[in-house]
């Protein structure tokens, strides 16, 4: 799907008709837009605002203390002389869980995103350069998994990797192993594998769209001028496919950092992510203000990383060049 707002043909004539009619049209347009936009403001912007407000309050037993304070955020970064060591990194924090889980989630999502792009790119190349007939069929084949239940796709990996799962029972039946391999499920690798599988089809489409838009005569010209296959890939396909690939990477990375379902089903105790902590703080530990602070901090960190990433690779200039 492409998301674009194009000017309707004949728009200049409308402008020429004069200002009063243009204004009337704009009022009518905003009138049509207002129910959906109003709903989005009421149910997205205001609740996120409420979450921010809540993060400045504190939980006091069963009641909420409505004094504005940075206490929750302070707790997330409170210094402690005693270090909690995680993978050899000392965390000098009094409450190190959120910080460790945040870094762990970012790393796991990053690995999953890299895997997704590595797996999706050749598939997108296949779709763009090999498939000439039944293109719509291939697109549907790639679309179906994206639309079918996320919960079930994640659960299917539990069937594949589980102690009594398909791999273990299959290998035992074949006589390759005597007892089930326990390292398959309930660890960060299982989460990364499952995340990559869940999102890979979603990443193919944006990359495919950017490949499909490449003018084929550029490739022919390069071939005529003596470029090898690899040179054509390196110098034409890769740069022109970069915006779609980056968009795909972000569309995978941003939502997976906060994923709750995958760590809950295949992560086990060692595979928890920041989303699991948010769920616990809200539903189990009854500390919604701290949960709100963790959510807001998570979104702020993701947004910051995305902005730095886009700035570092010069995404704006890249888009300009395509026009």
């Amino acid at each position: 799907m492409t998301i674009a707002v194009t000017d309707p043909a004949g728009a200049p004539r409308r402008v020429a008709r004069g200002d009063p009619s243009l204004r009337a049209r704009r009022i009518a347009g905003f009138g049509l837009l207002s129910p959906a936009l109003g709903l989005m403001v009421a149910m997205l912007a205001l609740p996120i605002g409420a979450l921010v407000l809540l993060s400045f309050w504190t939980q006091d037993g069963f009641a909420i203390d409505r004094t504005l304070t940075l206490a929750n955020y302070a707790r997330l970064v409170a210094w402690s002389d005693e270090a909690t060591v995680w993978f050899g990194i000392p965390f000098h924090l009094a409450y190190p869980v959120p910080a460790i889980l945040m870094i762990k989630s970012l790393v796991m999502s990053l690995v999953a995103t890299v895997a997704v792009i590595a797996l999706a790119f050749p598939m997108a190349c296949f779709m763009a350069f090999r498939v000439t007939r039944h293109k719509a069929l291939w697109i549907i084949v790639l679309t179906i998994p994206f639309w079918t239940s996320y919960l079930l796709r994640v659960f299917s990996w539990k069937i594949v990797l589980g102690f009594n799962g398909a791999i273990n029972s299959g290998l035992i039946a074949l006589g390759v192993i005597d007892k089930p391999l326990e390292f398959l499920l309930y660890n960060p690798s299982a989460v990364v594998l499952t995340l990559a599988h869940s999102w890979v089809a979603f990443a193919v489409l944006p990359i495919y769209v950017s490949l499909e838009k490449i003018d084929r005569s550029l490739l022919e010209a390069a071939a005529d001028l003596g470029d090898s296959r690899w040179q054509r890939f390196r110098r034409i396909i890769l740069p022109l496919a970069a915006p779609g690939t980056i968009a795909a990477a972000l569309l995978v990375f941003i939502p997976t950092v906060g994923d709750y379902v995958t760590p809950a089903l295949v992560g086990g105790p060692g595979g928890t992510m920041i989303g699991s902590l948010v769920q616990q703080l809200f539903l189990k530990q009854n500390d919604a203000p701290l949960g709100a602070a963790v959510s807001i901090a998570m979104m702020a960190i993701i947004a910051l990383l995305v902005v730095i990433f886009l700035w570092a690779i010069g995404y704006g200039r890249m888009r300009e060049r395509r026009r």
Partner: protein
Amino acid sequence: MLRRPDLLTLYAILFVLFLYGPVLLMPLFSLNDSTFATFPLKGLTFRHYADMAQNAPMMAALRNSLVIASVVTLASTALAIPAALALTRFRLPGAAPIVSFMMLPLVIPSIVIAVALLVVILKFLGLALSLWTVAAGHVLICLPFCLTVLMSRLEGFDPSLEEASNDLGCTPWQTFRRLTLPLAMPGVISSLLLGFIISFDEFVIAFFLTGTENTLPVYLFSQLRFPNKLPGTLALGSLILVGSAVLVILAEVIRKRGVQSDNAGDI
């Protein structure tokens, strides 16, 4: 036609196997005459499917999900149609940022949307959680998808038809009713189907916002912990997968029908 079998084609076949392999184990094991999802397969049975009808909580959850998904998809499509018209036909100032804002639910982790709505419902409005609060949350996440489908359909046909209709004396409502809506119909149907699937399959928001009653994914999640419930879970999961796949294919076929897009990349 594929020119010749090469590495890339081989890769594509492996890719599709990787994509579908794990998911297809579910229907495979659901037909297996065993309480475990293990190889070797024991024998064919439909017992697990027959048992489902007797499972009252599952049927209640199924009914809840069907009702919610229907209400949600009608509401979000009804909201998305005028919005899509406004964004594609009216040259509104600030349309691009508005579209970006409306696409936000696609990139915000759903757990954040869920807790934000939870906070507003419980702490600010003081309402009780129910299936209605789930439905409200689902409308929010369905809206961007419905809007995208409808906007790409509305951009797909010539706006000069509508201008001609206006010039010939039709009121805006007549133009919409007799021209725009029939032409946009494949997009509308596709939007209805996709909204239905999204709501029907959604777990995280339903998990946070539901009261005492379950939707089907929430029920399914509660069953995943019990190994002895596995066969029933597999049977239910298989039916959901098949149902969703049918709806997606239907939605895509209807959406594509009659659209001769000049833009090769427009999918």
